[in-house]
């Protein structure tokens, strides 16, 4: 009521009158129920100046939105890259266009991606979510070991037992040496079936990466903490640094390391995960469970959200690093699955054998057939190799 009385003359307003009226401007800039109703009524009353009203409204809305004139996200990023680059070069160009554009074009192309990684989260993207998002971005999982430094900088290492070492300024990957990227982003080491790797990080920590495993880690640890993500199996020897705790994240566990040696098994394709501690102290937390501190020779296992701690011989879980598996009442299906990954060869097992428990030591330096012959002593089996699909078939004898 108050408004209608106050603005009884809106029906004679022209475009420019509306745009000089406080109530009209306020209605567009910060509309509320009251203003919306008022203008609805106004439109319904069929005023002669409806065209002027619509034009004024449209104009103000266009202006408010800045339609079509704001910078695109790419432009914002490119411009920042130019600024950043100029600052770091400490070159002040007075010649507009030409000098800057040639530089800008190339810089923008190279830095575009990194810029967004840094710029959008002022804190870097969470390592686990990064790992999940990049899971299938590198698909060549059955070939060579891949060291992914960035989307378009991927190093292929043909060695069966690849060694990757992060130095102060460079990275040694197999026989190659590359310089470190300056940007803070995540690197990945992808070890396919049939291959292993030893990854030495810049802080001196070493990670033995088993077959079929992907490790994600920052190109440079930050000042407060060290963090890696493991999908698969890895044995870690973490160097002590009280100021920077070391975390290992997996699909379902968060392991806080307090300077130590331990083994992590957490394949995303499997339902269970476990941590076996050889030396030192780790704290493991999974899902809704309480955090647990492990002592040496203890195994933390979690399956479908339920966790348990058990006393074990840690050496048996870590022996793959030295080239042999040590199983203790493990299901035969599980043993074969590990062998299949380690050798990078498909093996099919007769379902009747899968649940059979077996214990023993397998020397992984032997060819697969020697290993299978050895298993024949424990479990009555026969195997054949099918060349058409490069698969071993194991049946009960």
């Amino acid at each position, binding site marked *: 009521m108050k408004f209608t009385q106050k603005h009884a003359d809106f029906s004679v307003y022209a475009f420019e009158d509306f*745009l000089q009226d406080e109530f009209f401007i306020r209605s567009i800039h910060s509309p509320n129920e009251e203003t919306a109703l008022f203008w609805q009524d106004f439109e319904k009353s069929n005023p002669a100046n409806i065209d002027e009203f619509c034009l004024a409204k449209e*104009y*103000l809305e266009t*202006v408010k939105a*800045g339609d*079509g004139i704001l910078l695109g996200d790419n432009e914002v990023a490119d411009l920042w890259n130019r600024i950043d680059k100029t600052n770091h070069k400490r070159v002040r160009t007075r010649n507009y266009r030409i000098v800057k554009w040639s530089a800008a074009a190339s810089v923008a192309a190279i830095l575009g991606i990194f810029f967004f990684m840094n710029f959008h989260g*002022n804190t870097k993207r969470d390592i686990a979510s990064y790992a999940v998002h990049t899971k299938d971005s590198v698909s060549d999982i059955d070939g060579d070991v891949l060291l992914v430094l960035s989307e378009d900088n991927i190093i292929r290492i043909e060695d069966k037992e690849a060694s990757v070492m992060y130095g102060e300024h460079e990275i040694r990957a197999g026989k190659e040496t590359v310089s470190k990227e300056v940007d803070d982003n995540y690197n990945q080491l992808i070890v396919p079936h049939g291959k292993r790797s030893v990854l030495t990080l810049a802080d001196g920590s070493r990670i033995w990466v088993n077959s079929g495993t992907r490790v994600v880690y920052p190109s440079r640890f930050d000042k407060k903490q060290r963090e890696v993500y493991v999908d698969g199996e890895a044995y870690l020897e973490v160097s002590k640094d009280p100021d920077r705790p070391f975390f290992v994240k997996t699909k379902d566990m968060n392991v806080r390391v307090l300077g130590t040696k331990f083994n992590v098994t957490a394949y995303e394709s499997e339902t269970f995960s476990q941590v076996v501690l050889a030396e030192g102290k780790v704290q493991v937390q999974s899902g809704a469970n309480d955090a647990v501190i492990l002592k040496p020779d203890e195994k933390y296992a979690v399956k479908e959200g339920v966790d348990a701690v058990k006393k074990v011989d840690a050496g048996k879980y870590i022996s793959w690093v030295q080239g042999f598996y040590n199983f203790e009442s493990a299901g035969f299906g599980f043993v074969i699955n590990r062998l299949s990954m380690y050798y990078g060869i498909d093996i099919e097992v007769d379902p009747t054998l899968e649940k059979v428990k077996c214990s023993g030591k397998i020397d992984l330096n032997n060819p697969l057939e020697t290993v299978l012959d050895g298993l024949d002593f424990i479990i009555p089996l026969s195997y054949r190799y099918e060349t058409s699909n490069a698969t071993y078939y194991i049946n009960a004898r």
Partner: protein
Amino acid sequence: MEKNKQSDTYLWGKFLEGDADAYAKIYKQTVQDLFRYGLLFSSDRELVKDCIHDVFIKIYANRVSLSMTDNVSAYLNTSLKNTIINQLKKNRSISSLQEMDEWGETGDDAETPESSYIRKESDGQLNQTWQSAMSVLSLRQREIMYYRFVKNLSIEEICKITNIQYQSVANSIQRSLIRIKNLIKKQSLP
């Protein structure tokens, strides 16, 4: 993103202390506003971007000698405006410069070289963006319109920023609106 936006003044202080993150955040928070403001003085997007680049380089290089300000965006706007105008002066002939004299007595009615250019270019097509509507205004009118309708400032506030009397600001807005209306109506004709 908007919610945890830190105040410009706080960031400016951090930046003067040498915080590189604060510098990046100032850029991020102000660049769209600056760009839009810069477009008041030149419709050349690339030139405006070049000038924003230069403003940020300049404040970075001089960060030791810069002082605190409680209005960062006004500071950056002024720097950008000066940079653009200097640049236009370099690029243009003397005669077009005289037409651009933004605060001159006849400034309100003078058509800028760009405005006649853009008008020709957009003839026959309905283009109601702020940009083209702005092109029929003098630089002085554009700035006042920007403060009034983009920044949503009151006439009193605009007087303070521009050092122009209340009645002049009000008149300027009235004249600008009529010009814009005429432009839009002309463009809407078949």
